[in-house]
């Protein structure tokens, strides 16, 4: 039986979160969430103070992606709540588990345009998995239990809990439920075995099969299962950008990400395949180009936990709904029973290997010493395999996709769905909180880093030593590339000047700043950063004119890939 206890809503929130295993909260206080903040004095949850609520949400997001448990962020009502919206939307777009707790004006003041009142439930509705606004303190334990359950099950996502101040303050007899029911929510479907069997038949009878692993593969940690299937059937593996690193990128069957800035060999082989096993992907336009061209002449087997993804962007031949790891396990088991190992080298695999080898040799790269490819390969060379990498958004992100090989699956994270500049650094801090035992590096651009650079304060004061690996072209480089390509080199609104000096900026926060202008310096800088127990910004000046190539222009198909000339 659950024991009843009398306490305030704020206290109940903390107790309920402790029961969920929460150890850290990222946030910033204000009038409407002070009762909750006061409870930090009485519980075992660490508060990590941010300088902007958006960063708190990104930290929770990074924490959630790495630990696969919801990260928690706190913000006050009104502007605090609106500041976390970008972070919530980013988590939703990338199916990341998160609990965002906002303070709200007292119940009696709701709707009166009170000071710092904002209808955050209304604003957040399209970008949350679910939102709660408990109107009585007694609801809070149940809301927290359900909130965590919703955030982390099925297709994960952010859950907002908006608590009016008086509901935080009032006391009630609290029951902390172990069991609960949400009638309209059945996150897990058992994969249909008949469909798995059909998928196997289709893969076996295909001439040019390929596996496309999406972000869902990483979310469900289906790494071993994916590798077994690829090896049993000798099928090459491409990924989406979000699925990057679902499969070891140094594996002979790995071709890397497809898409707008996919690997040349991956895009080529994707367009030549006749059957794809698509795992945990929503076929985003950035990955597949135009929908019509992609599905032409291609049989699609689609595995996903979210039934609404089936048929949304692509017509599928076979759909397997359910946790992709569970579905792949069934597939592995069936394949083992059939003992259908396709070990011998067939023409398709030979062609795939040749293509891969060709592009390894022949992709034209920037000739300078500090070209993007060389810089990222250096990072890969020096970083231990288990290191976690996040990225910002822009050219550096796409160079990371092209030239930083993920070897240990599930160690690469990026804002892929919303493409939120400023995500990578706070997300790296959240990731480091989840995994203090491994190095965490944010591969950054100067524009993006500027957006949340004040998280340096959090990294320093809270002793969270992450590394910012800053590819500094003093430009909003990706936009500049589009202006060079599509707007006849009219560069507008992209020059960042040499402002600020990122070494001095880092130092002013008490972090370490190192400038690396040669490969030698870079090598040393990375090693110094790895050894140091304070956050480090490695500022790497690069050529502002370097383009990211290959490039599949928006509204075109993977076959129209533009290559370096």
């Amino acid at each position, binding site marked *: 039986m659950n024991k009843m206890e009398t306490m305030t809503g704020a206290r109940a929130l903390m107790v309920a979160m402790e029961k969920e295993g929460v150890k850290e909260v990222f946030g910033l206080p204000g009038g409407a969430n002070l009762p909750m903040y006061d409870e930090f004095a009485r519980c075992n949850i660490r508060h990590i103070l941010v300088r902007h609520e958006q960063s708190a949400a990104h930290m929770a997001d990074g924490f959630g992606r790495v630990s696969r448990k919801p990260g928690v962020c706190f913000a006050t009502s009104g502007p605090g709540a609106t500041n976390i919206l970008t972070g919530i939307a980013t988590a939703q777009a990338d199916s990341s588990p998160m609990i965002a707790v906002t303070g709200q004006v007292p119940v009696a003041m709701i709707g009166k345009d009170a000071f710092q009142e904002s209808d955050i*439930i*209304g604003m957040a*509705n*399209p970008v949350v*998995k*679910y939102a709660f606004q408990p109107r009585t303190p007694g609801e809070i334990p149940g809301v927290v239990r359900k909130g965590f359950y*919703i955030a982390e099950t099925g297709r994960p996502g952010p859950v907002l809990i908006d608590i009016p101040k008086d509901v935080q303050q009032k006391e009630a007899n609290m029951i902390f439920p172990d069991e609960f029911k*949400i*009638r*309209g*929510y059945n996150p897990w479907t058992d994969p249909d075995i008949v469909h798995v069997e059909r998928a196997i038949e289709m893969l076996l009878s295909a001439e040019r099969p390929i596996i496309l692993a999406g972000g869902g593969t990483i979310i469900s940690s289906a790494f071993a299962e994916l590798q077994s299937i690829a090896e049993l059937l000798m099928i090459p593996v491409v990924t989406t950008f979000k699925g990057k690193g679902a499969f070891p990128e140094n594996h002979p069957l790995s071709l890397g990400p497809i898409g707008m800035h996919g690997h040349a060999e991956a895009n080529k082989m994707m367009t030549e395949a006749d059957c794809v096993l698509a795992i945990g992907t929503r076929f985003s336009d950035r990955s597949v180009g135009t929908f019509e061209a992609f599905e032409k002449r291609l049989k699609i087997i689609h595995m996903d936990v*979210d*039934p*609404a993804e*089936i*048929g*949304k962007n692509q017509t599928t031949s076979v759909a397997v709904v359910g946790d992709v790891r569970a579905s792949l396990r069934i597939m592995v088991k069936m394949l083992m029973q059939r003992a259908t190992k396709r070990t011998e080298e067939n023409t398709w695999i030979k062609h795939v290997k040749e293509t891969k080898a060709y592009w390894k040799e022949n992709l034209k790269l920037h000739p300078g010493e500090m070209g993007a490819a060389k810089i990222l390969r250096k990072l890969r060379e020096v970083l231990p395999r288990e290191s976690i990498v996040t990225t910002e958004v822009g050219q550096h992100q796409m160079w990371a996709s092209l030239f930083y090989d993920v070897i240990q699956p599930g160690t690469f994270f990026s804002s892929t769905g919303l493409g939120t500049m400023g995500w990578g650094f706070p997300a790296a801090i959240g990731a480091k909180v989840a995994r203090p035992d491994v190095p965490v590096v944010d591969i950054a651009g100067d524009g993006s880093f500027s957006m949340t650079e004040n998280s340096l304060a959090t990294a320093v004061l809270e002793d969270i030593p992450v590394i910012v690996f800053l590819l500094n072209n003093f430009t909003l480089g990706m936009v500049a590339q589009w202006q060079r390509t599509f707007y006849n080199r009219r560069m507008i609104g992209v020059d960042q000047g040499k402002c600020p000096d990122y070494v001095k900026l880092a130092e002013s926060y008490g972090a370490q700043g190192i400038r690396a202008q040669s490969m030698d310096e870079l090598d040393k800088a990375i090693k110094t950063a790895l050894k140091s127990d304070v956050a480090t910004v490695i500022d790497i000046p690069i050529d502002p004119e370097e383009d990211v190539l290959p490039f599949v222009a928006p509204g075109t198909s993977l076959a129209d890939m533009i290559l370096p000339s």
Partner: protein
Amino acid sequence: MWAILTLLVENKPGILFKVTHLFRSRNFNIDSISVGVTDNPEYSRMTITTYGDEKQVEQIVKQLDKMIDTIEVKHLDEHKTVYRELSIFKIKLSNANDSMEVNKLANAYGGKIHDVRKESIMVELTATPDQIRAFEELAKPFGIIEVARTGVAALQRSGA
């Protein structure tokens, strides 16, 4: 394709907002929507009529189903469904004959007469949207002053 969807949802504030918001943000159309509490006060039933090709309607159903506050979502087969809409027409009367003519027309459609005045008359009509449209066409020549419609309510026939 015109589709009738029936939704069993939690009877809580904000659900109608979420459902209509979903239609807006996913670029779907709402043709009509009606909501009412069911015999069990914990649930409401929503009936939504919408337009879209088969794929779109399938997507709408899936997205609605995915919503945590929806307990059941069904795309109803028109032919196996009883569906009706209530409409009220205020019609102009220009001469002595009009009153009788409107009466006749209303009778033909099974409508009821209300609020008979010298210059206007009201007709209450419960029918399918097609029948209501047909009635509207025939009433137009008299002059329609105002119309109010409830949107469709629908239930699947037993054994269907």
